């Protein structure tokens, strides 16, 4: 039915009645999910996974396409003390076109007040904001014949979406999963992974409990998975682990085979010319190449930049541009007025700029 009714035209006609607002702004009074102005979702269930991790089952509202690819992440914005804060998490549920829900699995980080809020502070019924699926850490179509997953801690979530997808199709190729977790209790999805291993002969799982067994030494890879050089490898986990894996694969000349999860935004617009950015309050200066965002440059320079979704949605990263010109990397819009507020996570410099931070 969705294809027979031209919803966009209905909405446009409706907006003649609601201008300057959209019909969505009124419909959401009836049901908070009935709006496409911002992607929203309702928390349906909070399923505890381990002591400090939980899976949030979310019912997305209008405008959500249910077309994420296994391994992608979504942005989630929750209101904490009146303020929307954003984080990105991998979708752990397999993509399903007819699906009505998505699931993300979150581990409460020590001192991570947002992740803690997500794990312990959300009750079913809460309305959250969502951002469309992003990321190129995805299961290729068709899946490679031989795969290796190197997973650390909550890095399991995108991999879980891939495993579930393969499981649902019933065609699991030759897969080796190496999964490190501090202890057995803290291993997210342990039971489900054990079930999958039993169900599929072609799936081999190595579990490593780092508090007792120590960290994965990459030199052990030859022993754990002798044919790792022939496998398409997907790694997700803490940054030091990813750094070590990258180095290992580079030394072997196999970086083409390695796929890492990177939480970064794909920016389509043209870059800027770059220039020197001056952070006037912290007195720091940094050269920017015109492809890097101001936020990244500021973080690199050690300026305490505010940030949120890192994809231009939430306005948390907004800083005052004292002088100079910046370009929005998403669409090429340029902003050059004195004391204008700019979103640092999606803009880069066009010439020298001064920022008030």
């Amino acid at each position, binding site marked *: 039915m969705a294809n027979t009714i031209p919803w966009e035209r209905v909405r446009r006609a409706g907006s003649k009645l609601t201008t300057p607002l959209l019909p969505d702004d009124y419909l959401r009074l009836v049901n908070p999910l009935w709006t496409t102005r911002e992607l929203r979702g309702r928390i349906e269930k909070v399923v505890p996974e381990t002591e400090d991790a939980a899976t949030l089952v979310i019912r997305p509202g209008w405008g959500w396409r249910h077309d994420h690819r296994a391994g992608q992440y979504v942005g989630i914005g929750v209101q904490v003390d009146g303020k929307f804060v954003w984080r990105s998490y991998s979708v752990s549920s397999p993509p399903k076109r007819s699906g009505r829900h998505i699931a993300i699995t979150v581990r409460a980080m020590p001192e991570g007040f947002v992740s803690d809020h997500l794990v312990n502070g959300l009750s079913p019924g809460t309305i959250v904001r969502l951002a469309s699926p992003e990321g190129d850490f995805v299961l290729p179509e068709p899946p490679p014949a031989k795969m290796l997953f190197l997973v650390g801690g909550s890095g399991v979530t995108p991999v879980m979406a891939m495993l579930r997808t393969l499981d649902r199709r019933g065609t699991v190729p030759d897969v080796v999963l190496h999964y490190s977790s501090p202890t057995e209790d803290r291993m997210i999805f342990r039971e489900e992974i054990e079930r999958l291993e039993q169900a599929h002969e072609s799936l081999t799982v190595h579990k490593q409990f780092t508090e007792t067994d120590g960290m994965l030494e990459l030199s052990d890879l030859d022993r754990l998975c002798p044919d790792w050089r022939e496998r398409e490898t997907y790694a997700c986990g803490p940054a030091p682990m990813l750094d070590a894996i990258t180095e290992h694969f580079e030394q072997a000349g196999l970086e083409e085979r390695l796929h890492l999860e990177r939480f970064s935004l794909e920016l389509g617009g043209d870059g800027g010319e770059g220039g020197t950015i001056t952070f006037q309050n912290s007195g720091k200066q940094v050269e920017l190449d015109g492809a890097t965002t101001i936020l990244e440059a500021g973080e690199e320079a050690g300026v305490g930049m505010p940030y949120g979704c890192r994809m231009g949605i939430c306005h948390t990263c907004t800083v005052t541009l004292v002088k100079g010109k910046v370009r929005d990397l998403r669409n090429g819009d340029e*902003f050059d007025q004195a004391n204008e507020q700019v979103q640092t996570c999606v803009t880069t410099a066009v010439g020298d700029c001064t920022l008030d931070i």
Partner: protein
Amino acid sequence: MAISDVQEYMHLTDEEIEQLGRELDAIRKEVEDSRGPEDAAYINRLIRIQRYLAVAGRLSLLLGTHSKRTRVPAAVTGATLLGLHKILENMEIGHNVMHGQWDWMNDPEIHSSNWEWDTAQPAEQWKHSHNYVHHQFTNVLGYDNDIGYGILRMAREQRWSPVNLGQPVYNAALATLFQWGVALHDLDIERIRKGEKDPKEMKRQLKQIFRKGRNQILKDYVVYPALAGPQWRTTMAANVAANLTRNLWSYVIIFCGHFPDGAMHFTEEEIEDETRAEWYLRQILGAANFEGGPLLHIMSGNLGYQIEHHLFPDLPSNRYGEISVKVKALCEKYDIPYTIGPLHRQYGQALRTIVKLSVPNSWTSSDQPEPPTPPRSRRRRSDSERPDRIRQLGAWSRGTSQERKAS
């Protein structure tokens, strides 16, 4: 000459003025640090109420006007609800959201960067003419276009011309058509007339105004009447009444902000090398409050706390009440006038000024406490002649630089 040389402040030393500035900064900091879930709930609740009012008003006109028995009550109810919805949207919600008062919530649906309000003026132009031109250069002759809006002579320093004789009439017309007066405000017709306006910028602005105004007119005077079918006349009349109510109300509230006696005018020499503390002082001196209960304050967008709003234009409006207690105490401590009175008296004074200043100064006596300054030409400044904007006035953008160049 700086603001501190104005008579009212002769008794304050530079150090005292800076101290006052620091105390006001402290008030700002305190409010900023305490913004929280209750404030967020306040604005969300208000937006909900305002939208329910709109729905109820429209429905009452659509459904209630078909039976002869309910026609009149439904029309009156509908017009009233719609009027209230427009007033709330423009005053307490739109104006304040566009100042960036709610940007701290990081809610893209309630954000100064993309809020569009339910009136003819495009938000972008409002944010320029109001947040920047008016709030930064409050009551500075030649810089603040809100002194009489280019239509009325509201300061004795402004040179009299025979055209001013019609002021009472212009005033009545402005009040009635207030939303359209506001819509044209940022165009700066005076500079267009003198050929000083950049034609590209003018074209761009006119296009924006045309598009926004057309949608507003279509909605109230074509689409809804058409939906009412045979009762289109009733719906049309109710919509006219609602718009008129909003126009008159917002006109009265806005005229009470800077035109009552006691709100002073300044000259460009006085804002030369102005410090932040001196800017604060000018805001206190140039604005006037009015008294009232909580409902009156909400319906007037908390502009009865005009002084507080001018000191802290981007702090949430629901906090102005508590801020005013502290500001008043500071004014007493530093012996600075704090202009306040009941709404009818403040408006009465504004009206008296309109009438008095329609004739040459020598015919009337001044009601202003300010010392007489030599008359000034009424030439208006362009942005390139104004200092860059200061922060804290609310974020705004004049479109992207390409848009400005392309049009």
